[in-house]
């Protein structure tokens, strides 16, 4: 099973492009992790999966509380982040995906942390593949900086980032 983490508009649009490169015939079960207020991502999943509509394939949508809303005060962030972590932990525990693909929304920090914990407690090794947004040319996003430490594979779309982050892999023209 492949787990895909979706966030807000731009990230979701880019993820939909990235998913065109994934062989769904190989990952016949998909788990989408979506912020609970993110209706647009639900539409996008519907379009993507509706177009396929292939027998013997199934997909799940796991809605998690947003780890931090835009403009939310930093004081109330830890509590909502904890709720997000718990919710993500439940999803990954129940579905046991074989890999996680994420590209930058805040939720992917929680997903990366939970995946790391599940590995440490020897529940399952779930490799995390992070693709930094096409919008980041010279610097990583906050999620990117954190996931650089947590992800098994860290892909960037601009060459300058590899110089600053040597563990990153530069792959041009992905989207």
């Amino acid at each position, binding site marked *: 099973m*492949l787990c895909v983490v979706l966030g807000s*508009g*731009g990230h979701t*649009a*880019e993820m939909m*492009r*990235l*998913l*065109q*490169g*994934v*062989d769904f015939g*190989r*990952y016949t079960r998909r788990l989408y992790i979506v912020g609970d207020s993110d209706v647009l991502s639900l539409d996008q999943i519907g379009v993507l999966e509706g177009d396929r509509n292939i027998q013997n394939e199934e997909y799940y949508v796991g809605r998690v509380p947003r780890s931090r809303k835009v403009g939310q005060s930093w004081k109330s962030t830890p509590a909502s982040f904890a709720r997000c972590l718990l919710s993500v932990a439940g999803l990954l525990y129940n579905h046991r995906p*074989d*890999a996680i*693909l994420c590209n930058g929304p805040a939720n992917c920090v929680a997903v990366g942390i939970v995946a790391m914990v599940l590995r440490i407690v020897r529940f399952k*090794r779930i*490799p995390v*593949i992070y*693709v930094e*947004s*096409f*919008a*980041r*040319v*010279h*610097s990583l996003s906050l999620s990117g900086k954190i996931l650089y430490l947590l992800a*098994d*594979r860290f*892909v960037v779309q*601009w060459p300058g980032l590899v110089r600053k982050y040597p563990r990153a*892999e530069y*792959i*041009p*023209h*992905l*989207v």
Partner: protein
Amino acid sequence: MAAYVTVGSTGFDELVRTVSTREFLQALAGRGFNRLVVQCGYSFGLFKPPPTESETFGIAMESFDYTTWPQRLVDQADLIICHAGAGSILEALHSGKPTIAVVNRGLADNHQNEVASELATTGYLVVTEPRNLASVVAESGYASLRPYPRADPRPIGEVIDEETML
């Protein structure tokens, strides 16, 4: 010939105002355009073109806040003028249409402009600000752009495959 202006999911007051000025419309007409379609987002109320046809230089105009079929409008356009957001830029470039990306200096997060600047350096698009848009069009600064390479997301599938085989 049609020009499609798009501000994306939010709004861009200055761009929407600019594309309804006489100066801009005159520049468009001068390049042979007779149709202008403007997606305004929440800046919709600011699209106020001159009232008479002589003042719009014979350009037929259409404007709305959001559209369900942006792809169709992109396909029909001969020139795309978009805000410098990464998503809009990608859509425009993949359409193969000449693209002018307009930078919004009012945005706190200027990372989006980095993409536009980088792509402009390689000659895939023209990047400008609202106040210079009319002259870029008048001088057809968008005429000799390089085609943008087709996207190939397959390497991401390969990375996932490699990791799941471990």
